[in-house]
């Protein structure tokens, strides 16, 4: 418990908060990797998930690929990509590994989101004279949003955790002070940083949990869509 006290003092000392390598800069880097990777993953996975959920084609493939992608160790994948792309490309290599990690939960969320809409709802929208685009924009997207955001929450949870490892290839982020601190046995620094990482992860998760609650259309808010993170 003494170590927590030391970590607390480490966190309180002002020099952690200024200049190169300070905690604010590390948080910024960490969020940068997280948001860019999840953004790219979402740009790929959500349209594909919608397409498969909408047409009903390729669902079996999707499940197989998403399951297999989950079995790939992202830490190893990141190091492998950095070796293959060279040190100058390590930034994109690390991002690519994080993108691959973020795709399966987003894909599952978008696919399940469209698929769970009752067929009769979509038929009703068509019977009202809606064009396919209108059905997509004003029926399928709003009704699938809670599950899509659930997928986003799962992706962010995975990526924010794995972004701690980009420091191993010489990039920044909050993992830096841990990975650099372990061999030096600077446990005040590693434990203090770990606490910061936990806070960042919990805040991001809480924000997305709130967003997914707000996004549920009022007519659907009957409690049948719970926390979907366990799916990822």
């Amino acid at each position, binding site marked *: 418990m003494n170590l927590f006290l030391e970590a607390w003092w480490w966190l309180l000392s002002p020099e952690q908060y200024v200049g190169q390598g300070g905690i604010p800069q590390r948080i910024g880097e960490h969020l940068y990797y997280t948001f860019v990777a999840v953004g790219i993953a979402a740009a790929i996975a959500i349209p594909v998930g919608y397409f498969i959920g909408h047409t009903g084609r390729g669902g079996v493939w999707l*499940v197989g690929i998403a399951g297999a992608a989950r*079995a790939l160790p992202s*830490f190893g994948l990141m190091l492998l990509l950095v070796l293959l792309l060279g040190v100058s490309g390590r930034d994109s290599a690390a991002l690519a590994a994080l993108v691959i990690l973020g795709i399966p939960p987003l894909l599952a969320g978008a696919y*399940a989101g469209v698929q769970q809409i009752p067929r009769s709802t979509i038929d009703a929208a068509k019977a009202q004279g809606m064009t396919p685009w209108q059905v997509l924009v004003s029926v399928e997207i709003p009704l699938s949003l809670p599950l899509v955001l659930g997928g986003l929450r799962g992706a962010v949870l995975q990526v924010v955790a794995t972004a701690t490892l980009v420091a191993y290839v010489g990039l920044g982020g909050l993992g830096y002070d*841990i990975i650099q601190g*372990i061999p030096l046995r600077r446990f005040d620094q590693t434990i203090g940083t770990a606490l910061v990482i*936990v806070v960042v992860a919990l805040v991001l998760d809480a924000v997305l949990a709130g967003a997914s609650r707000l996004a549920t259309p009022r007519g659907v808010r009957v409690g049948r869509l719970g926390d979907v993170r366990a799916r990822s």
Partner: protein
Amino acid sequence: MDWVLNNVALIISLSLDHLRLSVIPIVMGFLVSLPLGWYAHRYAWSRGIVLTTVGLLYTVPSLALFMLLPPVLGISMLSQTNVLVALSLYAAAIMVRNAADAFASIDPAALRAATALGYAEWGRFFAVELPLAGPVLVAGLRVVAVSTVSLVTVGVLVGVPSLGYFFTDGFQRRIVPEVATGVIMTFLVAMALDAVLVLVGRILLPWSHLAIASTVSQRS
């Protein structure tokens, strides 16, 4: 290929280490999740508390948990116990929610019928509830197995050797086949454990392999 041929012994021994470091947390997580999941399912007031707690736990990144557990448990950061406890916590975090869902998925009529036939609470749990929850539990265990096998590799950063050793060692020595071997072997260990779970599910729950397949496809 030369690298692989020259290191067959090391690959096998680290794969076995990896398997051991994966199986223990999966089993521990499963055993812990049964009572907790059942409780969360049975008593509505505990559901929110239990599921929120495991949800928060699951949010903590593994590298951070490897730092925070040792001072709490009073163990060395570099000990194997650290990694085993951390991964058991993650496994339990996934499985508790899954077990609560699994018990909730049982048709209440089947439970009433069992009671009417004279099953007491414990007997009913083992003879009726557990087997009927089985398919969903197996589906959850498959998710846990794959995620645990991948997380074990991070343990190499706190000095616990697994196939993750090939990542860091190969990276530092710039040997691409070494890192690739680590990735491929980790993938194969995950697939092997997954296959074992499917097989065990089919043997223990012979009536349910269709149900297992369908829950898995919904979940992933």
